């Protein structure tokens, strides 16, 4: 009961802040409400005992990536007259959400019908750093290495691009 009410509160914060993120006019408002979204998603992870995901979400998304984005927004020094005129934005948002609505209905229906671990018993270890590490390096070693190669490529690309300009 208690965790249910916490869940609903967090879900509400997540949904509201993500709507604000999409509909905000100024980039800094979007970025800041995105931080709220990420932190509340991290809290949702903590609620289901995925402590490692919780802390990694905060360190990487909320701590590192978003602070770089904010940093860039501050550097650009965007003034109000530089922002695009978004007169029909709300109509666009309404229209697209009407188009997407049936698909999301199908998705919710699918989740409710399937029996993905909704009633499964999980061990005490679930979601801790040791458990995640063992699963990652045991079962999913190939995808993990592929993702790290992808990241390496992006890293080298960033270095080369910044060298070219200098």
């Amino acid at each position, binding site marked *: 009961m208690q965790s249910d009410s916490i869940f609903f509160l967090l879900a509400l914060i997540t949904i509201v802040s993500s709507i604000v993120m999409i509909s905000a006019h100024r980039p*800094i408002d979007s970025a*800041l409400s995105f*931080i709220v979204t990420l932190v509340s998603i991290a809290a949702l992870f903590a609620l289901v005992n995925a*402590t*490692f995901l919780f*802390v*990694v979400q*905060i*360190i990487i998304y*909320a*701590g*590192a990536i978003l*602070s*770089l984005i*904010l*940093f860039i927004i*501050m*550097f650009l020094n965007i003034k109000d007259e530089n922002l695009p005129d978004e007169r029909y934005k709300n109509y666009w948002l309404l229209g697209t959400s009407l188009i997407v609505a049936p698909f999301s209905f199908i998705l919710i229906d699918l989740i409710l019908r399937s029996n993905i671990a909704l009633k499964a018993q999980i061990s005490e270890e679930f979601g*801790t*750093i040791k458990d995640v590490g063992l699963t990652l390096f045991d079962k999913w070693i190939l995808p993990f290495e592929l993702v790290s190669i992808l990241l390496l490529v992006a890293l080298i690309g960033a270095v080369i691009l910044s060298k070219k300009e200098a």
Partner: protein
Amino acid sequence: MNTVLILLPLVLTLLYSLATVPVLVWMERRIAALIQDRLGPNRCHINGIRLGGIIQSIADMMKLVFKEEFLPSHIKNRFYYLVAPSLAFMSAFLTFMVIPYADTLTINEQSYSMQALPTDLGVLWFLAFAGLGVYGIILGGWASHNKYAILGAIRASAQVIGYEVAMGLSLVSILITYGTISLNEMVSYQTQSFFIFPAWGLFIQPLASIIFIVTAFAETNRAPFDAAEGESEIVAGYHTEYGAMKFGLYFVAEYIAMAASGALIVTIFLGGYQLPYLNTSELINNFELILWGIIAFAIVTSLLFLRWMKQHNIFAMSGLDETKIYTTVVIGFTIFAILVMSYYALGFGDANEVGVMLLQFAVFTIKLFFLHFVFIWVRWTLPRFRYDQTQKLGWNILLPLSLANIFITAIVVVGVNYGN
């Protein structure tokens, strides 16, 4: 009893973070004065009681609280402007939640964790909320709508982001050595001995501890890395436009962040709450012997303190006779403490677990205040780095060094465990 033991670490967190701030301000001023060969604040008093100058910090705090709340009229984003200092404060405060103040206490087969938040996330929790602290600075600088403030905020956030990388990598080698991320297990690892030294992180991982301590200075924006508030270049940096208690929150947040990184350094590199070589069960078994040692120590130190005070506390004040009152208090407290301790030392009562817990609190506090002293000592000894030098040190020296350290550590750990 149950509730008390659960609330105890939370209360201690408040004491170590919020309540130490006036003491830290006092330490900062008196140690600065000591280094610069002057006296420092010592005149402020309440009817003759000066407490060595602590009354001055209390007066300063009162000033900040009762100052007029002033909102500059050019600020457009009031919400961000107002929320920024509290973000800085909250994230600094939350980093404190995972520090263990004593070993897990077991009474009647029920164990109580002496961390404010009984989680095993340890170091990762600290990194997460230390990273969130940047937002307070970025937002404050941006919302102030002032060139100096935004320059300070950019400096501070670039510095924190850059040094976080080196900090995280130096922690990785520590994690490889200890084989755990839980701070409590790290402390119990450090009760072993390493050749003749205690197996403290400082002796096992000297390079990582130096890197970590340097990055901790940079993360908390303290001298020599305080170019973000370099008053000769950019006024006061990101809190130029802040006054009264809004500035006070930034000010307190900085001290709490310093206390939290000091506590983490104590826990990871200086053996935490443990005395060197001794683990908790040994302490519990030989508690009577240790009590006698503490009694002897208390007598000697209070006698030395009284003699020192008689010679040095000679400043003439109106009001009560300060020296006389302190002498009575010190003698009374020492006698009371000795009576209580000898009651247990002679074996009349059995409270070894609680006694050891109190001893560990004391050890932790002494180590923490030593670290505070080091922080202040460095601030008043080293000149400020130029801003590009700060970045160069972080990216060109500390980052490669910590990477090399991970490599060496991994080789050594694999080599030692080879064949097991």
